[in-house]
């Protein structure tokens, strides 16, 4: 586009434009920073973490955090009942959480969007069939269904992720289908049809980009949901198996010590809370930045 007439003023790039709108939402920017820091910590866990996350140290069990009486350097956040360094475990646990979030969201969103688009464009009987199946999945309490799936597949982190992706997917289907149905009746879709667009082109190029705003918000929300659910499955013993330093599993392992050693549950809990909150804030900002109706020129 640079070879055009010289009077053409330079349009800001797509990314610059996105950033301009995203920046206006302060909460989203804070969320983004917190999220970025957590991601950086997770990536650099091997370098930063002072200890091996699964190395046990019988001489230093249930040490309190550094600032409390009895805390000992370098166990900054104390140790768990087996003498493992909590900070190191949290840092490595962040890896699992983000990994889980990304995989679950990608699987659930891809499947959900494609099924939703098909349902939105399909003849009525197929649409009804798809939506009834989704209703059936939605009618189960999500964690219960995930539990059943994991119980059938066998407890492991992978199966937990798969189960949660299946449980989260109907939300995408409904959202996409609803958005497709509103968009489909609009003139620009008819106009694409008059221009000769085939069904696939209409689905993915004409309609899908106009449905993305709610889907992106849903993706951000289900990212945090996935982290929560995997933590919950871990807590119930159906997710990551010990000694994996997954946050939910950490909570489960130290449940008995809540009264004696507050730090063994507080820090994993806080890690989950802060991550989920940061992602939700970020999701809000994403919507502001991506929805063209909220843009001013």
């Amino acid at each position: 586009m640079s070879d055009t007439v010289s009077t053409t003023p330079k349009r800001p790039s797509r990314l610059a434009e996105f950033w301009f709108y995203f920046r206006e939402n302060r909460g989203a920017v804070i969320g983004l920073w917190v999220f970025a820091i957590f991601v950086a910590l997770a990536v650099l866990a091997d370098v930063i973490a002072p200890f091996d996350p699964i190395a046990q140290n019988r001489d230093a069990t249930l040490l309190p955090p550094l600032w409390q009486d009895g805390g000992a350097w370098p166990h900054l956040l104390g140790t768990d009942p087996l003498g493992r360094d909590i900070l190191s475990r949290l840092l490595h646990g962040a890896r699992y959480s983000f990994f889980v979030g990304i995989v679950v969201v990608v699987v659930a969103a891809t499947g959900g969007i494609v099924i939703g688009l098909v349902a939105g464009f399909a003849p009525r009987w197929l649409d009804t069939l798809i939506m009834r199946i989704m209703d059936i999945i939605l009618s189960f309490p999500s964690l219960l269904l995930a539990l059943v799936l994991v119980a059938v597949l066998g407890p492991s982190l992978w199966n937990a992720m798969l189960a949660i992706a299946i449980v989260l997917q109907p939300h995408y289907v409904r959202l996409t289908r609803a958005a497709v149905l509103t968009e489909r009746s609009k003139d620009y879709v008819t106009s694409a049809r008059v221009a000769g667009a085939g069904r696939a082109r209409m689905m993915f190029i004409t309609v899908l980009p106009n449905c993305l705003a709610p889907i992106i918000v849903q993706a951000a929300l289900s990212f945090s949901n996935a982290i929560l659910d995997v933590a919950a499955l871990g807590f119930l013993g159906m997710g990551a198996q010990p000694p994996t330093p997954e946050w939910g599993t950490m909570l489960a392992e130290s449940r008995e010590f809540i009264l004696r050693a507050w730090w063994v549950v507080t820090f994993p809990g806080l890690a989950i809370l802060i991550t989920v909150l940061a992602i939700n804030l970020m999701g809000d900002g994403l919507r502001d930045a991506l929805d063209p109706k909220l843009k001013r020129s």
Partner: protein
Amino acid sequence: MIDPLVEAQALSIQYPVGGGLFSAPKLVRAVSDVSFAVRPGETLAIVGESGCGKSSLARLITMIEEPTGGTLTLDGQAVTPDKWADLRSTVQIVFQDPYGSLNLRHRVGTILEEPLRINRPDMTASDRQAKAREMMELVGLRPEHYDRFPHMFSGGQRQRIAIARALMLNPRVVVLDEPVSALDLSIQSQVLNLLMDLQDRLNLAYVFISHDLSVVRHVADQVIVMYLGRAVEQGSRDDVFAHPRHPYTKALLSATPSVTPRDADHQRIKLQGELPSPLNVPPGCAFAPRCWKATDMCRQTRPELDEAIHGAACHFPE
């Protein structure tokens, strides 16, 4: 005489509506037995109030819907669904609402080039861009508009974009579905002048759908007045406007606001009642319940459009 580009013979469409598990769907006769012919460089205007089947007719001509009866001929070829893909570039459409007819997610350049991308797969990207820029100039858009989004434009400019897009495939027929009724009066005239200018330059055939008689008077060569899916009067613009034969046309014309002070003999005809439901069309003349001339014959037998050059579907035409 030049062969007509669009020719419709008794074109009809019915939509099934409603109908659940236990009830049969009802039929809406949106368009019944409409016939016309449009030649290159000519404008056929279709006039009527909301719900009379104007837009359904537009969807038939642009091959969005398949007619349930009658035949449509485009450029000498009978239109059947298997030929739709080949005939797409012959007919294009401009919609009423320029806020809904442009994809908000695409830049103007992408919007304009999409028809080429689909229908001319062997065209290079730079050729497409050149064509899009040429078309933008033709409709009066500036080059820097090329990579803006539709939400940055006013209604009039958007309608220019929509017109440019419709012309990208060099169609010979353009269906204009109320192209100016969503625009301000001052912008309306600009867009209308642009449309007429383009028609002269490109020798386009227009099917111009409108409820606004003053606009129709300005642009049309032929006029069809529709009422509840049927043509009630059909003829050249001058005939229809100067000597309306059907009472409905008379009523419509009398309702057009005029700038000059009213003449003594200008009497506004006020129609009573509403358009009957197309689900439940009265057996006789559809206009009979609102007509001041209606007799028992009108209520029982439906008048056919007479074969005259300036035809009217009325038992008591003027």
